[in-house]
């Protein structure tokens, strides 16, 4: 055999190569089955007066129906100056109308407040906001928008969300589960 092509060894090497590939293949396949793909969603950021702001709902514990949501507003200041600004914070809820619904309802505001935040140059700051309104059943979203210039009093009534949206100044900033079971139970027909 020495010095000649040995089909048995060629076959063994071929099987070994296929075996190695088979070990690598399953993780790729299971990743495909899960529908996991490489692009990573970007967290929404609200840019206002030079600040980059994010908001999260109930960051420590899952929110339940009738809880009063706690929000954490984080602002970073990449500029060389200290910045003080006001923003409007609004909580809205949405629900599918029925088990067979194609769409969820229009966002229904249930809490609105205006807050002021100051961030030093090149620093970050966080502000905790406690809603005085309990969360209804549904998908709860926190939205940030500029405080309208003419409006110097704290908001008590919810602004017209659709009108603001059409002006492109309200940004949906993530949603969280209120109570998935309650959603399903209420939606069932």
């Amino acid at each position, binding site marked *: 055999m020495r*010095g000649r*092509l040995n089909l048995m060894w060629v076959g063994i090497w071929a099987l070994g190569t296929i075996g190695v590939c088979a070990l690598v293949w399953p993780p790729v396949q299971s990743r495909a*089955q899960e529908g996991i*793909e490489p*692009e990573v969603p970007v967290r929404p950021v609200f840019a206002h007066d030079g600040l980059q702001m994010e908001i999260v709902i109930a960051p420590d514990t899952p929110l339940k129906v009738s809880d009063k949501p706690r929000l954490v507003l984080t602002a970073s200041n990449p500029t060389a100056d200290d910045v003080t600004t006001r923003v409007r914070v609004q909580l809205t809820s949405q629900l599918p109308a029925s088990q067979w*619904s194609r769409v969820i309802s229009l966002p229904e505001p249930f809490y609105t407040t205006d807050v002021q935040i100051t961030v030093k140059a090149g620093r970050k700051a966080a502000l905790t906001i406690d809603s005085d309104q309990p969360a209804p059943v549904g998908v709860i979203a926190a939205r940030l928008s500029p405080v309208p210039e003419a409006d110097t009093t704290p908001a008590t009534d919810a602004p017209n969300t659709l009108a603001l*949206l059409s002006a492109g100044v309200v940004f*949906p900033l993530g949603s969280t589960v209120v109570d*998935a079971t309650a959603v399903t139970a209420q939606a069932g027909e």
Partner: protein
Amino acid sequence: MRYVNAILGVMLGLAIVWGVGRWVGSPHASPSPAGPMMAEFGPPLRTIVVHHVAGSDATLSVIRAFISHLPAEARVCVVCPDDASFAEFREVVALPDERVIPAIVNHPITPWSRDRWVALLPHERGSRTVLLHPFEEAAADAWPARRGDQRVAGDLANVPQLNCVSQMVELRFDGGDLMADDRHVFVSRAVLERNIGSAVQDRDELLDRLRDLFGRTPVLLDDGPDHHVGMYMMSMGQGVALVGDPAMGLELLGRAAAPMDLPGGVDASAEMQARFDAVAQRLKALGYRVRRVPTLVGAGSKAYVTYVNVMMDVDAAGQRIVYMPVYRGLEDLNQAARDTWAAEGFEVRPIDCTDVYQHGGTLHCLVNVTGRGAR
């Protein structure tokens, strides 16, 4: 010579793996080259995708009526959450085995296939259709069926008969937020609202992104109604577009009571009329000949009596066909809509959507398409 045996063996092994890989396919390969978004009209329907969830009788009756009209060459991929749902579909919808492509996904889904993904045409002859889907469904956190819907494009990529690949993008959209014809992709206001400040910085960046993804000129309908595009307009082809008209709907409705199941009654507001009119004006400005068709909008809801939420097809003789929703008790509106489509040269095939429209969609929302082409 020992090394020659090893090298030849490894090469042979890799060749076999490569061949098997080509045969089995790699459904989630990195972004695939794709053609433009599939238009609403064009070559005959070849492969459609519908969902069915056991118990969803209203949606199934619409799907059954539509499928009963399709020619024998058209295949139907049925996405079901479980075997029981698939069995129910087969019991109700009469189709020979060779026309049915089952996709039992073993997770919850909604009955609405249109919103899950949009189809991009194959890049070249023989390549795969790309199912472009968002990275998250609206309300998926709180709505288990919507959470399952997020996986459907990936599920379909694993169905060999469909010859598709799925591709996720960082944008937030429902499939129904987008509609394409041979020139444009029409985009609902929701896409603007859901992506500015997150996926893109501003409107211009969004337009650039949409143009790149869909291969057609994007038209943002940001003054339009707050609903999916196919609920209020449809490009009919040949430079003609159809837009709903609530005032026309109300006039034809006359003194008759609004449909019992239209939530909240009919929205007769000037604001709603202005939104439909804004879409018509926008299309005229783009050079379309615009026709209006009656519509009724549920006050404070997304239930529309609509005659633009259609499926279009063409037969072997080149006759254009429209499958158009109709509603029991609204015969005057039905007839006006039928006349409008017929006047543009379509053979009109009515599909009864009375029991489904209050859920926020009708025929077009229940049917998606992965393939059009010669039969």
